[in-house]
């Protein structure tokens, strides 16, 4: 499953529509949309809101080993050399309040320009002074959720399973709220970048679909059967499990071993000692 978080509904709307996601009423505090191997949560604005929403979602619907997390949203900048309406991938995220920096792995191909992100708790205009004092690098995007999203998501995802995309929406110069982008304008801005954004989401979704299941049902059943039949201790069971894991990497299934057991192992062992003799023999067969 691909988990996507955005702060605002208008940021998620194009994704929800494109992937045909349906709102679920499982959650009351945030809006959550579900579809085929994809989940979108609207966290609300700010670090605490992002943290709470991501943690809650991942606790109720725990990510599996191969799942991915994408944090998407709008961001501002003080650097005029960066292009408005462009989508950027964050390869470094600094939390302004703590000056801690986080580095998501960028192992995947992507079409976006990469940049550093800085996360603060107030709107960009109000943080400009602090940014000038603390940020050595002049090129960065400013948002209000990135660092917190990284911290929260890292409890559930590996560094290689997270990506942070931001669309540059403004230069932080607007004097008051009336001049800010409307939700519709932001949605349209994102829709204009659909050609880059949606294939990337598809790619992450596809990647998250690849799952591993090493110990399949047949193995678990066989293991339990042998545990009873051969009176195995916990450590012996663990050893046998390791032998089975190895065997299955070299063979398609356990059919030959099951056949061998049918002819070489009795239906019950009289003692632990007898069980151990057959256990040793079975181990040899599995090598």
């Amino acid at each position, binding site marked *: 499953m691909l988990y996507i978080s955005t702060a605002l509904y208008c940021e998620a709307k194009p994704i929800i529509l494109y992937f045909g996601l349906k709102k679920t009423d499982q959650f009351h505090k945030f809006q959550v949309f579900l579809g085929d191997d994809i989940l979108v949560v609207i966290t609300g604005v700010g670090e605490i809101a992002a943290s709470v929403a991501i943690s809650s979602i991942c606790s109720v619907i725990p990510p599996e080993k191969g799942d991915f997390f994408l944090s998407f949203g709008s961001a501002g900048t003080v650097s005029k050399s960066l292009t408005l309406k462009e989508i950027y991938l964050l390869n470094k995220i600094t939390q302004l309040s703590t000056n801690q920096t986080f580095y998501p792995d960028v192992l995947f191909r992507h079409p976006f320009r990469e940049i550093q992100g800085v996360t603060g708790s107030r709107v960009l205009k109000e943080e400009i002074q602090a940014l000038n004092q603390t940020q050595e690098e002049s090129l960065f995007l400013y948002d209000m959720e990135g660092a917190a999203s990284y911290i929260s998501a890292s409890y559930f995802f590996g560094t290689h399973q997270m990506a942070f995309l931001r669309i540059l929406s403004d230069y932080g110069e607007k004097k008051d709220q009336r001049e800010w982008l409307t939700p519709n304008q932001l949605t349209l801005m994102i829709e204009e970048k659909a050609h880059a954004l949606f294939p990337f989401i598809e790619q992450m979704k596809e990647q998250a679909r690849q799952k591993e299941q090493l110990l399949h049902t047949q193995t678990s059943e066989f293991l339990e059967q042998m545990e009873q039949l051969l009176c195995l201790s916990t450590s012996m069971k663990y050893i046998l499990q390791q032998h089975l894991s190895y065997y299955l990497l070299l063979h398609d299934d356990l059919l030959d071993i099951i056949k061998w057991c049918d002819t070489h192992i009795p239906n019950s062992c009289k003692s632990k000692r007898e069980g151990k003799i057959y256990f040793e023999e079975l181990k040899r067969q*599995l090598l």
Partner: protein
Amino acid sequence: MKNSNDNYYDRAFTHIYVEKELASGTQAKDIMKHFPNAKIILIDHYKDVFNRSGQNFHEQKKVRNLILANKKGKLVYPGAQVCQSFGNQHFYYTSSVMNCIYDCEYCYLQGMYPSANLVVFLNLEDMFDEVRELLKQHPVYLCVSYDTDLMALESILSYGKRWAEFAKENEKLTIEIRTKCASLKAWEDIMPSKQVIYAFTLSPEEVSKAYEKRTPSLKQRLTCIKTLMERDYQVRLCFDPMLYISDYKKIYGAFFDEVKKEIALNQVYDVSIGVFRVSEDYLKKMRKQNPKSAVLQFPYENENGVYQYQRELTNEMLNFAMDALKESIPEEKIFSWEEEKGKESNGKKRK
């Protein structure tokens, strides 16, 4: 995680993380020149990237990145228990680079490091200083390419050359550079020296193909070794780790025959033999990260915290190797970790 779409992963070295204080230095710039399209990310300390929690070595290995840093604290360490001392009393190792460009499935680095990214320490001079201090006390046998493959990185770093030149200035120093590199170009600027031993790890082609991704073929390695020996470089052959595979006697038998045919074994510096072994903690991590590896999932036995093949099998494999080699090289030149462990590092060899 297996990926059906090969386009998912990017190329290697697309990102270079550089400690801020080094970014404007000549050394860092020279290295970065080799990767003109890489994104440069400034960092405070290499551990901020290298030691992050939640990294997956196996995934990162597919797209390794580079970290340029200065190493602080202790720089030279006494040799580890699972490593061969080759009879050297004052056995040390140092890591001027952490991690390797090759991708060997059995490699202990997967369990040792939290990240597969390559860390290059630029303050080689500080390591030289620490070795100089040791040399004031006694001769030093120093392995400089345990946790990496310096020769494979020679075209970018020239660390092999710098270590060889340092050895030349210090006659009581012997250096071992372990490698699987087969590019003669890497040795182009390095003069042969009695004090520098190039230890080549060799495996049958079947093993190499299956478990040593991105490494040169056996044939390429043998050709390289042969040429280096002709040019008077000191060569050690490491048949280590031997892996237990089906038909291992047939495969390793043919392999030893090929090596003997190509290389005059009586002219190599020495030979080491050993079977796969790894510490308990490392194997646990390695298995978790790569559950589909038959080499790692083999049901090894835990002997004093070291996972290895069952004793009978270990002995059988080592004896097999010994029998195959002893006609071509004096036995006292064949070193086996199995014999060395548990004893003091006093130069005793496998009989």
